[in-house]
């Protein structure tokens, strides 16, 4: 049996499969489908200090093998999420990662501090890359300077490991990645959704009220894989790769280009037990390829 465990330096995961923020609700929604302990970790839907209603409908638009979303980080706020986390933790031992959001730098730090103090939380993921909060899709992860300031400010307030989630919409994602790790990020995760646009020829208006929306799903996998490779070549902290993963082979592709672990996202909507299936498929593929340990292939792309 292959060894699927992953050493992130600050923590070991029993396998590299993590469910991605915004695609796995607050974990509880998936309890009817599989034992969450199967996962390496899970990331909860992004959270702000206060409850947020999210964007007006439509919030989804399907594209070939892809999904545009403009949910707008609807959520119950930090106080309610603490209760949800306690409930979830009582039912599963899976490491829980909180996806931290903020309207401004101070809010990011405030929310991060709250969940850093919660015993049931294993790690924090700083969501500086959601394109659906500000009009036009702007986010802190588009700018290396802003990213550096924000990561330092958050690091000062937290004791738990901090993953910084990067945007593929930055002009130079490698520069932003370097800024994040130089400012104290314990790990990097990428990619968040690609900014996209859908229009309605009948009404001659954009489909989404926010105009642009975030594209995810199998359609983005080659784009994501390239960016993960670029970042891995310069990263000295672990990288968690994601973008369009739907099966074990997809997950291993990201590890081959240098990712330590992966996140599984949009496929959770189509197949609620997909993440559990992907764990099994990774083991089967490793056996088939005679890989005993993921370190044997991590970053071993020959190009």
């Amino acid at each position, binding site marked *: 049996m292959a060894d699927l465990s992953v050493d992130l330096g600050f923590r070991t995961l029993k396998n590299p499969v993590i469910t991605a923020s915004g*695609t796995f609700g607050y974990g509880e*929604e998936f309890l009817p489908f599989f034992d969450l302990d199967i996962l390496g970790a899970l990331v909860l839907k992004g959270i702000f200090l206060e409850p947020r209603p999210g964007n007006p409908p439509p919030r989804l638009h399907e594209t070939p093998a892809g999904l545009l979303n403009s949910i707008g980080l609807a959520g119950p706020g930090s106080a309610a999420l603490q209760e949800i986390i306690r409930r979830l933790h009582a039912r599963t031992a899976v490491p829980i990662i909180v996806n931290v959001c903020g309207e401004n730098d101070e809010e990011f730090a405030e929310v991060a501090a709250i969940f850093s103090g919660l015993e049931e939380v294993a790690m924090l993921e700083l969501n500086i890359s959601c394109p659906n909060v500000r009009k036009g899709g702007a986010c802190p992860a588009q700018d290396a300077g802003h990213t550096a300031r924000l990561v330092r400010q958050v690091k000062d307030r937290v004791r738990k490991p901090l993953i910084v989630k990067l945007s593929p919409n930055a002009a130079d994602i490698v520069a932003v990645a370097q800024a994040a790790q130089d400012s104290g990020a314990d790990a990097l995760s990428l990619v968040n959704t690609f900014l996209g646009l859908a229009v309605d020829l009948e009404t001659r208006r954009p489909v989404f009220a926010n105009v642009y929306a975030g594209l995810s799903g199998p359609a983005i996998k080659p784009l994501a894989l390239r960016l993960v490779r670029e970042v891995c070549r310069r990263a000295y902290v672990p990288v968690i790769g994601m973008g369009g993963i739907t099966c074990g082979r997809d997950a291993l592709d990201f590890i081959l280009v240098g990712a330590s672990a992966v996140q599984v996202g949009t496929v959770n909507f189509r197949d609620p037990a997909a993440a559990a299936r992907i764990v099994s498929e990774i083991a089967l593929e490793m056996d088939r390829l005679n890989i005993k340990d993921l370190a044997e292939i991590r970053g071993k792309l020959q190009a």
Partner: protein
Amino acid sequence: MQDERGLIEEARALGGGYFLLKIAAPLIAAAVRPGHFVMARVSPAMDPLLRRPLGILEGRPPYIWLYFQVLGSGTRLLSGLRHGDSLDLLGPLGNSFPEMPDKRVLLIAGGRGIVPLFHYARAYGERRPLVLLYGGRGKADLPLLERIKSLTLQRLFVFSEDGSLGQKGLLTDGLEKIVREERPDATLSCGPEAMLARLAGLLKGRGLNNLASLEARMGCGFGACHGCAVPTVSGAFRKVCDEGPVFPLEEIQWRT
């Protein structure tokens, strides 16, 4: 909720782009109530990526019936299913219409909005009198009428916009008179958003218990993605999939 592989027992084209599937899905069929829906995985490939939400027309273990109109790539694939094919289903999902055993209930169905109301009449019609108001653009839009005649209904009113079936006009044109004559305690409705918005206006202030089942595009169907949220009059959003699809008619902020 079950994640079940249904087996197509019978697939029928009803004309006008409408289809009826009889599916052996014993686990879902055993748990289904009027108003429930399923998420159907329309393709084994990744395009279309998402499942499609489909209301359940009827459940009689081990079978469920799905009735749908071809609207896009997903429903077109579903319309190609034949006897012996399989279809992955998640369900039953959502809340459901309450039985309301002591009430006089008026069912109001626009086009394919007949689905949950047909189910309601099938499940509860023999226990007490129900009145059904069913409308569509024309005869081709009301292909379920023959099947509706097998339901136990006290009265049936049919409207078509082009006059090809029943009375000519919108069903909302006839609502006032029917409510006056039938004196319902409650209305259960499902149909196009414009119809539900008009109903909300017409039924306002009459002291009736009005419940509507909403249609929405969905990402997951079980509350995780928040993609199907609709605005309510309080300003908050509600998820159609797991907080609905049945809501008090007055609670929804209609856009039209």
